[in-house]
């Protein structure tokens, strides 16, 4: 029920957007994410974008994994 997957926004028209994941295109509502821009990734839940994926934070988390691992290897 609370499943949401990241999909890429290709284009926006009013409160709807064309999105793409793995070559599959789907029209979704962006009524809940007025700040969205073409090129963003959004979390798609039951046909609605419920949030815009923060790319900077996504990269930070990946960096954090690497740092944690390095730290644990030192000890």
């Amino acid at each position, binding site marked *: *029920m609370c499943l*949401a997957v990241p999909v890429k926004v290709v284009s926006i028209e009013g409160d709807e957007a064309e999105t793409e994941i793995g070559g599959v295109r789907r029209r979704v509502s962006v009524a809940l*994410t007025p700040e969205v821009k073409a090129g963003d990734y959004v979390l798609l839940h*039951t*046909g609605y974008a419920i949030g815009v994926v923060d790319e900077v934070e*996504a990269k930070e988390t990946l960096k954090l*994994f690497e740092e944690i691992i390095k730290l644990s290897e030192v000890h």
Partner: protein
Amino acid sequence: MKFIDEYQNSELAKKLAQRIAGHSVRSIRLMEFCGGHTHAIMRYGIRQLLPETIEMKSGPGCPVCVTAIGDLDKAIALAHSPKVIITTFGDMMRVPGSYSSLQQAKAEGANIRVVYSTMDALEMAKASPNKSVIFIGIGFETTAPTIAASIVKAEKERIGNFYVLSFLKLTPPVMKALLGLGEIKLDGIIGPGHVCVITGSHPYGFIPEKYGVAYVISGFEPLDILLSVDKLVQQIETGSPKVEIAYRRGVKPEGNRKALELMQQVFEIDGADWRGIGIVPQSGLKINKEYQHFDANNAFSGLLRSARNDKPAKEPKGCRCGDVVRGAATPLECKLFGKACTPEKPIGPCMVSSEGACAAYYQYGASYE
């Protein structure tokens, strides 16, 4: 970057698990609130990666599972009305009610359609002006704004034959109810990531403050979950429980403002009936006065009342789904599990839903054992 594969690296997962084992000293009990987390944990074998000091419990975060059987009976009663088209998410179809299921009602001729989105239900209402199209509104804060958006759209486009039967539920009040019950002692909670995309992290402050329980909001990929467990263990070992976001690419502390506004515009807070828990005050969303012409509870009140009087709700005999959603029993402790109750012939909703703990144990049970 696709924001999925990067968080599934098995080498990193093993190293993260080793790190957790390295600093987990006390025996602790964690609950993953969300059924989506339960499935990810079982699917990726995360329990086996964790040290013996960490016990994991599944929680009530499965909307289908916690829908009260009496509420499901209401949906089935409406389905038998000849002028009605019921629209619902697929998971609800096979859940047994007291006397029937939506699937059985459909086989008996009721007009029931599985939809992927409330937008599909709206389209159906436009295409069938002589029918009343009722959407069965189950879900938590993740889903509530999408239903609010559909009601606002119906108002704007003057779609007069669209209704919602709201069984929407809120997560902070039920967490409070479970912690207050004290039935099982918890040291930490893995917070539901997609609920918190909407709510933000603020509504959960009472969990560490009042109950001293650690709370980390998690994403759904294996590395996300391990990172959250790592943070929970750190908080618990250092005796400093707090609310932390380990899913920062999706969750902001303030949540999704637009979604919260829409919820406030359309709904008001009310008590809700949770399977296995009972009525939890202020844990439900009903449609407010301004939008009450979309409320199926209003529009079909006579029908709903007579159905309830004719056939009072009754739970399936022997089913422990109610205990499972509280974390008070594991699916393996239910006598029906895997014998009388299977995904092919489910007795309780925990075996039906793609987020149900019983379904997860059944599907991935071999690896868990």
